[in-house]
Every structure is written in structure tokens, then in C-alpha cells.
């Protein structure tokens, strides 16, 4: 393995600026690794030629002293971000031939910051899934394995391709999106940092929509510092997105102090869900201790409506999705299956173009919005959503951020994933409340299971207070010394 790809983003950035190596060298090393790890199926489309072109341009800018904040850094782009002139599929058959004539705001922001895109990463179809097994381009494999067990594991989802690619070091960082845990859960499963920013922080323009009131883009990286750098590059007000918020973007990296003295951290009792493994509870307790030792004040809090978040989410997200996905009708772009008449064309195109999970969610969404059920399901869910949000508002009167586990389990088997949809949905039970309330939330690796799989800790913060999350997370990152834990375990075995 080339030493260059072992660097994290901030290290590589510093060395590029010092001209220790060029972006072309760095990019070439990642292209090689991307090819070598192809078996993970982390990329849907690889764009090595484009990447090298961009790397050359980056080297010129570095030489000219006009480098952006991510100049020359090779990243993976979740295949949900439209990229001008490059196939963009949302991992669906229905978009298997779609070449966008435009570039999403977030991917453009990254380009403008100098980032080099290696290609489009795999995901659950239309970002609907928690194991990256619903992709029309096949499942993604987690580079992590249980100790002494060669069974394939899922990388989590929906941003499973981004997570696997970063974890396998076939890109230095990747973009991801999070509607109900799709950044944080795969980050937890793959031992990475994943940050879902406040709703409205990153523009949704040009990102294939799943559930508009919940979708938010964010970075997936190796370290907290990397996440801070990449978040700054991705963020910003966009007049093309009416839900984007016009608040200036701080230089997150410069605000990293690693200081949590006096920070009030809430521990919600409701996050101890049924069936949560003791190893997860242990990591959570360790997280509490680390923060306490660094001078934070730990407070028990209650978020009473937590258990209703997941069913609420499974009304709202499918309802919005059923409408957002109506545009895939085989008329203007994407795949078309001809039919006897127009209705037949629609039904065949959509029936054969969407996979089972997407169809299931479109069906639920259509049902909960339909006449006679709208009030009982959709409106009810929106009322519960307000109660869930109010839980957080009340809690944030007392605390500055909240610490919880990211997922109730570690990564599970790729060959025997849960077949029961509700069991699968439970993966995101701890993640969705932050989406419903639009709050920033971050997952970082806290420890390992006894069989050597990563476990994530989640921090949830106040609106637009990503800085507090990053600082608390950095304290945990340092104390946990996750890489140290991994090395130790590998030595021991």
C-alpha cells in the first residue's frame, strides 16, 4: 500500500502545500487503490481521467499560491449528487443512463475548494436503506471483518459506498447524505467520522431528493479535523434552495480548540433501547468518562418522545419520497419501458425501474397521503415531529450537546441481512430524531466490539452549532485513540 494513501486529509493538505508531493501523485495513488479495492463495489462510476485532469489543475493552483481549502484532495462523490457530464444514477435502474447537464451546488463548492473527484460512490437506491443492499449496482462490502471470520459485512447505508471507499482508503474523504442516519450509521459501521450538518447548512440543489424536509449533505472522513475542513468546503447559503439558510460559514478548523471545560453534555435515558448490546453501552459510558475527564459537565436528560421518532420518520420520509420520485416516469430522462398506452408505460417503467425497497416506500408514502388516511397518518406524524423537536428544544435549555451511541448494533452480515423491514429500519432508531428536528449530529468511532468491529458515538447539537459538536468530538477522538485500539486488538489476536 502506497504510504500517501495512509495520510488523512489535513496531513495531505499540509504536505501538498509544502510541495512534499503533488496532487497528481496523490491522486494516482488513490486511483490505484480504487482499482485494487474494486471488489468492495464502493464505486458505481470511476472517473480517473477526470480526476487526473483536476489534480493537474490543482497542482498549478498550488504552485500559483491560489490553493483552495481542499486543493488537490481526492474524494469520492456519493452518486446522489448530480455531476455535469458524468453518469448520475442514485443507484437506480431508472436513472441508469442519466447524464446531468448541471452540477450540484455542494459538488461545485467542493470543486471550487480544489477537491478532486475520483468517481461516484455506490449507495442504497435513492438513499433508501441501511445496509447498502438495495443498490441496482449490487451491494457494497465493508472493508472491516470480524476477527477470525472472513464473512462479508455490510458497510451500512445509505452512504455505504462512500463509507467503504474512505475506510478502504480508496479515497481520502467522501460526500454523503443523511435523511435518517445515512451518513452516521455507515460511518459508525466503517470506523469513520460522519457529520450531518444542521438542515439548511448545505444546499440540496442538484442532489437527487429522497425526503426534502430531512435530506442533508455532509462529509465522511477519517478525523474530526478532516470533517471540519470538508464541512466548510461543502457548506453555504444557496439562493437556489429556498430551505437553505443564509448564515455565514465559520472557518471550522480554526475553531477547533479541543476544549470542553464547562461544556454541559446531556445523556438521554431513552437512548438505551431494547436489544442494545452491552459493548455499545460500554463505549457510551467511556465516552461520558472521557468528556468528564476533559472538564465537561454531564447531565442526565430526558427526550420522552424518542421511541416515536422512527415510526414518525417512516411516515414522513416515504410520503415526501412518493412525491419526489413521481418525476421518474420515463418521459424526459432515465429508463423507459414502452407500454400499450401511457398508463402502461408509466407502470412498467416505474414497476421495473425501481427496486423493491423503493417501491415499498413509495407505496407507504402514497398510502399515508391518500384520501381518508392523510390526517390519521401524515398529519399525526407531523404533530409528533413537533413534540420530538420540542424535546430537543427543552433539553438544550439545560445542555449544550447530547451524547448517545450512533447505532444499536455493529455492522452485520452481508449475506444474511435482516429480511424483516422493521428490523432493518431499527438500525436508524438513534439517528432519525436529529433529522426530524433538523439538528446537526456527528458520529465518530468510540471503540470496538469484542470481535473487532467499530462502534460509533453520536453527538447531537443545537442548530448551526456544529463547532461545539466538533470540539466535543475531538476530545473523544483523542481520548479514544481509535487507531490505537485497532492496532492493539490486531496485535493481541
Amino acid at each position, binding site marked *: 500500500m502506497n504510504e500517501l494513501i495512509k495520510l488523512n486529509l489535513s496531513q495531505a493538505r499540509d504536505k501538498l502545500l509544502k510541495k512534499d508531493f503533488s496532487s497528481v501523485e496523490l491522486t494516482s495513488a488513490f486511483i490505484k487503490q480504487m482499482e485494487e479495492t474494486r471488489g468492495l463495489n464502493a464505486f458505481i462510476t470511476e472517473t480517473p481521467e477526470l480526476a487526473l485532469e483536476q489534480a493537474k489543475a490543482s497542482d498549478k493552483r498550488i504552485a500559483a499560491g491560489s490553493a483552495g481549502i481542499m486543493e488537490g484532495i481526492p474524494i469520492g462523490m456519493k452518486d446522489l449528487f448530480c455531476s455535469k457530464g458524468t453518469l448520475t444514477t442514485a443507484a437506480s435502474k431508472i436513472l441508469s*443512463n442519466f447524464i446531468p447537464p448541471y452540477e450540484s451546488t455542494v459538488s461545485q463548492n467542493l470543486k471550487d475548494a480544489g477537491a478532486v473527484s475520483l468517481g461516484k460512490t455506490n449507495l442504497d437506491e435513492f438513499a433508501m436503506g441501511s445496509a447498502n443492499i438495495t443498490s441496482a449496482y449490487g451491494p457494497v462490502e465493508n472493508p472491516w471483518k470480524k476477527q477470525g471470520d472472513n464473512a462479508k459485512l455490510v458497510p451500512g447505508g445509505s452512504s455505504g459506498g462512500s463509507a467503504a471507499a474512505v475506510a478502504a482508503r480508496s479515497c481520502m474523504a467522501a460526500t454523503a447524505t443523511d435523511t435518517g442516519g445515512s451518513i452516521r450509521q455507515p460511518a459508525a459501521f466503517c470506523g469513520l467520522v460522519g457529520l450531518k450538518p444542521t438542515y439548511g447548512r448545505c444546499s440540496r440543489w442538484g442532489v437527487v431528493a429522497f425526503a426534502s424536509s430531512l435530506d442533508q449533505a455532509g462529509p465522511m472522513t477519517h478525523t474530526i479535523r478532516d470533517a471540519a475542513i470538508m464541512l466548510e468546503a461543502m457548506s453555504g447559503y444557496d439562493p437556489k434552495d429556498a*430551505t437553505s439558510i443564509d448564515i455565514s460559514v465559520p472557518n471550522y478548523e480554526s475553531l477547533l480548540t479541543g476544549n470542553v471545560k464547562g461544556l454541559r453534555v446531556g445523556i438521554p435515558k431513552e437512548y438505551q433501547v431494547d436489544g442494545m448490546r452491552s459493548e455499545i453501552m460500554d463505549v457510551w459510558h467511556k465516552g461520558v468518562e472521557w468528556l468528564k475527564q476533559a472538564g465537561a459537565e454531564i447531565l442526565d436528560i430526558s427526550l420522552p418522545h424518542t421511541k416515536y421518532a422512527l415510526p414518525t420518520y417512516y411516515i414522513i420520509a416515504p410520503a415526501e419520497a412518493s412525491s419526489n420520485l413521481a418525476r421518474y416516469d420515463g418521459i424526459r430522462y432515465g429508463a423507459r419501458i414502452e407500454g400499450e398506452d401511457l398508463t402502461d408505460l408509466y407502470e412498467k417503467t416505474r414497476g421495473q425501474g425501481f427496486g423493491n425497497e423503493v417501491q415499498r416506500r413509495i407505496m407507504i408514502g402514497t398510502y399515508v397521503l391518500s384520501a381518508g388516511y392523510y390526517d390519521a397518518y401524515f398529519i399525526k406524524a407531523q404533530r409528533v415531529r413537533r413534540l420530538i423537536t420540542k424535546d430537543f428544544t427543552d433539553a438544550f435549555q439545560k445542555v449544550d450537546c447530547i451524547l448517545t451511541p450512533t447505532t444499536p448494533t455493529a455492522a452485520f452480515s452481508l449475506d444474511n441481512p435482516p429480511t424483516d423491514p422493521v428490523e432493518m429500519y431499527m438500525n436508524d432508531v438513534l439517528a432519525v430524531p436529529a433529522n426530524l428536528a433538523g439538528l446537526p449530529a456527528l458520529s465518530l468511532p468510540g471503540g470496538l466490539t469484542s470481535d473487532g468491529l467499530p462502534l460509533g458515538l453520536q453527538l447531537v447539537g443545537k442548530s448551526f452549532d456544529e463547532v461545539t459538536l466538533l470540539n466535543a468530538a475531538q476530545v473523544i477522538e483523542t481520548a479514544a485513540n481509535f487507531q490505537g485500539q485497532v492496532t492493539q486488538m490486531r496485535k493481541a489476536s
Partner: protein
Amino acid sequence: MELTRENIIKVAHLARLEVPDERLEPLRQSLSQILDWIEMLNEVNVDGVEPMFSVNQEQMRRREDVVTDGGYAKDIVANAPGGAQYDMFSVPKVVE
């Protein structure tokens, strides 16, 4: 909530999804199961609670009335399945 086969057929048609016969029963079962689970929300007292449709409820910014877009018919139809004719999309004839 136990859905019927007819429910499934009706909803599938509303959503314009062709569901082969052999998929109807599995779909009926999984959707019924999901809806059963969702019924959990009936425990929550929402009296007097306003629905919350989105996070950003404050103010919607408005743009100026200026022509800034369009003028690229070829790009609009470039992805059209089956190709475009006269820069237009085509579908099987619709009879009104």
C-alpha cells in the same frame, strides 16, 4: 392495520407501479406489518399540537422577476428516452 389485496392494487395504481401478481401478497404483508408498527403513534397525545412540516418555518426568501434561465432546449431533451422530435418529448398518443 391489515391491508387487503385491493388496497395494494389501488395504491400501486395511484403510484403508477406495475406489481406482478406474485409480488402482491409479499407486498401486502410487509406493508401491513409496517403500518401495524406505525400504529404505535396512537399512544401519543397530540391534542393542540400543530403539525410541523419542515424545520425552516420562518420566512421564505423570494427571487427577483428576472429571466435568468432557459434557452437550452437541446439540453432539456438530451436525455429523452427514445430521443426527441422537434425538440419535444414524446409519449404514446393520449386521447382525451
